[in-house]
């Protein structure tokens, strides 16, 4: 059963995995009400949407779903930043650039049942940028994989919430990541298994952009295109900053869309902070595409907090109390 019939041209038959609808999701905490944004328009009006180059036939979305995803993304930012503040460790810049992508996938695209995390028919999500566990664990908790209260144990001794995700500790984690360039090759194998079986599950990967400097991604890109893995999608969190500097000042990636096209992928470039755009490209029916999908999601590292946005120091910077309080005041 499809998760979002409003995005798919038609329901896909035989999908076994139980659908988790938004309205079934657990409450995500008292601060959700505080966190709900005034309206989706404020997120859509950023500078990135102008260069997003969306295809003309964007389906009309239910505004309440888009607003709900935006609210979830805001909650992810707030919750993950609290985790980073309390642990005094983490990667908040990347948590914030990925928040809308994660919220869109988990609340608008993926089919999964958190009580059956190894259901063979589930859609797979592979978090290749494994350092951004603040956002990843937040979205897993909000999706019902484990209690939200457990987020308070982030990086504490014996916590399941290691700095990088471990599938043997935590449901919802498909493969252990942390070293970069590992997610796409593993996801390629998952998609091959599905293709062999004629299964209808989809496999999604979220990579950083600096991470694409790892050659293993391009090995896998060759194989995924060669095998026409249309049920495989990679989302590139294109925030243009890596740990030490801008990507384009380190080892240039542009023109990134042309690189993926040259490797045989179908490429979409969107505003990675606009759930409507993300939903349109990620929720589209992959059947007949004949190619894997690469979504280049233009984002801003540290998105949502004035003093963090587009600042390389916030790759793994951690806030003091004054910064934390200021950020929480802005993330509303």
């Amino acid at each position, binding site marked *: 059963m499809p998760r979002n019939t409003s995005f798919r041209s038609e329901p896909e038959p035989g999908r076994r995995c139980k659908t988790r609808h938004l309205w079934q999701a657990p409450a995500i905490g008292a601060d959700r009400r505080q966190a709900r944004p005034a309206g989706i328009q404020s997120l859509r009006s950023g500078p990135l949407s102008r260069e997003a180059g969306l295809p003309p036939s964007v389906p009309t979305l239910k505004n309440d779903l888009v607003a709900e995803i935006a609210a979830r993304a805001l909650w992810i930012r707030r919750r993950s930043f609290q985790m980073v503040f309390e642990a005094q460790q983490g990667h908040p810049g990347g948590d914030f650039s990925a928040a809308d992508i994660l919220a869109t996938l988990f609340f608008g695209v993926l089919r999964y049942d958190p009580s059956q995390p190894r259901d063979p028919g589930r859609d797979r999500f592979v978090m290749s940028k494994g350092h951004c566990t603040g956002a990843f664990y937040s979205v897993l908790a909000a999706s019902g994989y484990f209690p939200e209260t457990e987020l308070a144990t982030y990086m504490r001794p014996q916590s399941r919430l290691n700095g990088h995700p471990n599938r043997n500790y935590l449901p919802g984690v498909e*493969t*252990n990541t942390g070293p970069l*360039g590992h997610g796409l*090759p593993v*996801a*390629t*194998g998952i998609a091959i298994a599905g293709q062999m079986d004629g299964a209808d599950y989809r496999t999604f990967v979220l990579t950083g952009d600096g991470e694409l400097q790892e050659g293993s991604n391009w090995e896998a890109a060759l194989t995924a295109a060669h095998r026409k893995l249309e049920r495989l999608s990679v989302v590139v969190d294109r925030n243009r900053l890596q740990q030490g500097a801008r990507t384009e000042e380190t080892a240039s990636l542009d023109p990134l869309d042309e690189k993926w096209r040259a490797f045989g992928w179908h490429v979409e470039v969107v505003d990675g902070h606009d759930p409507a755009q993300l939903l349109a490209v990620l929720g589209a029916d992959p059947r007949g595409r004949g190619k894997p999908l690469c979504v280049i999601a233009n984002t801003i590292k540290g998105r949502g907090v004035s003093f963090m946005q587009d600042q390389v120091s916030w790759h793994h910077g951690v806030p003091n109390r004054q910064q934390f309080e200021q950020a929480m005041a802005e993330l509303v």
Partner: protein
Amino acid sequence: MSALAERPAGRFDCRDSFAATIEALAEADPRIVTVVSDSVGSSKLNGFRTRFPERMVNVGIAEQTLVAVGAGLANGGKVPFVSAASCFITGRALEQVKADIAYSNVNVKLIGQSSGVAYGELGPTHHSIEDLAWLRLFNNMKLIVPADPWQTEQAIRAAAAHDGPVFVRVSRMPVPALERTDPHFEIGRAETLAEGSDATIIANGTMVHRALAAARILAEEGISARVVNMASVNPLDEAAIAAAAATGAIVTVEEHSMRGGLGGAVAEIVATTNPVPMRILGFPGFVPTGSAEWLMDHFGLTDSGIAEAVRQILVRKR
């Protein structure tokens, strides 16, 4: 099914045994698939490809993706046998082996083909005498170094039956079929192929038949040397090592670096339980140009070389 082609003088290529076994397993279990990196022929998987073309994934010359795709296939419910030259599937893809396979603890079987110095003259880039030292650090990965065609088949079957990561080191060096009174294979269990009380030779892989020949030489001199085939490097058969230590002297022999392999593994147990004199036979590091046979002769990994090591260690025996 690939025939077990007999080599001259009753010698066998264990890759043939691997190929025959994987085809038989695949016939019975549709979950079994193979993953290769342009390594079909060198893995002797031509027969598998002919019979099960839809169940072979060839990623091209891309070992990182080779290993990672294995992890992904396991996620999708397959039982992948990932096969490539041992030097590349380990060294080139070591972080994938660590993170995607071992640390993720997934049901993937890695087959390191043509291990040791089998590629002889091609040189140290193509030798795989570091693989056991690297992989031994991954505590949850089973490591098996079979000694002959029968044990290769047993190792592949045991790997398929075990739910978790396994590495099987398959040699292309011609070896004889070993004689066994009580054939039995179990991961973590060593087999004693010759009884003895003066010293114990612990060997695996291509060195086992040489160790047996060394014991025969020594027997003529009145020296009683036990020969233990320690195919399972992880986990180790600690009881067999304790019994070896009880003979008072141990010589280990492996087609591997003398650093960190079988010898190192045995020494860790011996040194911390019942220290006795040990000799570790293997290669000292990067080796000069030469055929595999020449290299083994040169570094004393021969019947007479192993026998001499036992004589020497008996002098040090308390």
